[in-house]
């Protein structure tokens, strides 16, 4: 339970941390004519099957996957493995941990965050930032004091759009999480498998009410429907 919240928050924080500079770059430094095509490009992976987007990470994180082969090819896998305290040269096990789940979650929900953030940064008046810097603010300080407060609704919406689906995540932990990466969704499934229907229902209801609560509380920030591609 707590672990799900913790993993969800970590994944949400990383997703937003990655999406903010990206959206900032897209809205500020890319030619206006190119912005829309580049934005569509962000959504394209999202048009593919959710199962396959998780599955494709097995090719990357698996024992014979891209990361392992690459490190081996560089000749430094051995050192890393030894450094981690293993006696023999063995594949680096990157799967089956809560961290592999977080990586995949960030990948899955990055488009939500990028889209939502972009649409609010896009409406920002850049002259205000320049004015702040003329008055002596450093660029980072100007961004923090001028830009961030103005796009706060967008940030809230992005957090909600990323956090809610993560709460009910089932497949990513199932495929890349192992025992360590188990989340509420998998717990519900476990209950159901052992015919503990009352427990499964109770936990489902809990998650669903929490989500509805979040939606109601933040309904003002959530009018951005296009975040779901619809």
């Amino acid at each position, binding site marked *: 339970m707590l672990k799900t919240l913790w993993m969800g928050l970590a994944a949400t924080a990383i997703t937003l941390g990655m999406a903010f500079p990206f959206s900032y770059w897209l809205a500020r430094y890319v030619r206006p004519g190119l912005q829309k095509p580049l934005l569509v490009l962000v959504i394209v992976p999202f048009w593919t099957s959710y*199962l396959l987007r998780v599955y494709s990470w097995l090719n990357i994180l698996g024992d014979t996957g891209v990361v392992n082969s690459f490190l081996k090819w560089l000749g430094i896998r051995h050192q890393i493995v030894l450094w981690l305290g293993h006696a023999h040269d063995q594949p680096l096990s990157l799967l089956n941990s809560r961290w592999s789940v977080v990586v995949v979650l960030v990948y899955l929900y990055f488009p939500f965050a990028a889209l939502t953030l972009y649409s609010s940064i896009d409406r920002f008046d850049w002259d205000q930032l320049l004015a702040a810097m003329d008055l002596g603010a450093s660029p980072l300080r100007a961004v923090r004091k001028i830009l961030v407060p103005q796009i706060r609704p967008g940030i809230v919406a992005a957090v909600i759009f990323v956090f809610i689906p993560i709460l009910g995540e089932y497949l990513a932990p199932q495929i890349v999480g192992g025992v360590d990466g188990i989340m509420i969704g998998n717990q519900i499934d476990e209950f159901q498998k052992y015919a503990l229907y009352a427990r499964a229902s109770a936990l489902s209801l809990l998650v669903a009410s929490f989500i509805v609560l979040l939606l109601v509380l933040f309904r003002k920030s959530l009018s951005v429907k296009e975040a779901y591609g*619809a």
Partner: protein
Amino acid sequence: MAREAGVLAPRARAARGLLTAYGLFIYVFLFAPIVLLVLFSFNKNQYGSFPITGWTLTWYHQVFGDPVIQDALRTTLKVGGWVTLISVVLGTAAAFPLVRAGLKFPAGFRVAFTLPIMIPGILIGISLLIFFRQALHVQTSPTTAIIGQSLYTTPFVLLLVAARLQGFDRNLERAASDLGANAFNRLRLVVLPLIFPAILAGALFAFTLSFDEFVITYFIIGGYNTLPIFIYTQIKYGITPEVNALAALVLVTSILLFSLAFILPPAFRLARRGIRSMRGHREVVREPVAVTEH
């Protein structure tokens, strides 16, 4: 913003360069998994991974020759067809009261209608499983999967059609009524042609979502396979290049279908406008599309 780059010399340019590099990195991050998947599906290496030992189409031959996959494809298409039909009919019908009935709490209804999109698939899947098994005592089968998927796809059609209805000029219907059209003819000759692009987009959306749906389906399809479910059961035995090939095919299909959902409806409108302008102006009265489309 060329203007500021000139004003704020080197540091600003460095920030810009850094962010551009970062932007490119993000695209690599987003596309690498997908590209690698497709790449590995042509790889001779039978572990479906690096190193790439040569190029081959063997895995694709295996995919097309596999009777289990053919069976899964048939189920996928059958389920997808029914889901599309059900969600288009229900979603379009539900869009009318949502937009036009003057409901007391429109926002509340809207949220309620979109809940199936926001509620995680695992909750829908398991609650339906318990509902079918414990409450209705029916066996899970493709039929129950069709019901479950429709629950999830209908809101997409609803939202698309409702958005189109919202921008609909009701004077057109009043005009048709003045000219003697009854309710059925108004719907058939005025309203449906105007909202058809949204319905078409909704249908494509519904089909693609159904084609890719895994979590809900997994719980309520019983012993049957759709393509995603077949892939999932294979993953348990490790990655094989054959699954990579099937995955690549499914991936490309859904990207194409989604692109169609975005390209086709506007193209359809354009084409119809083209036909109208060829027919000349007298047709305008019979083709109400002409009046509103700018």
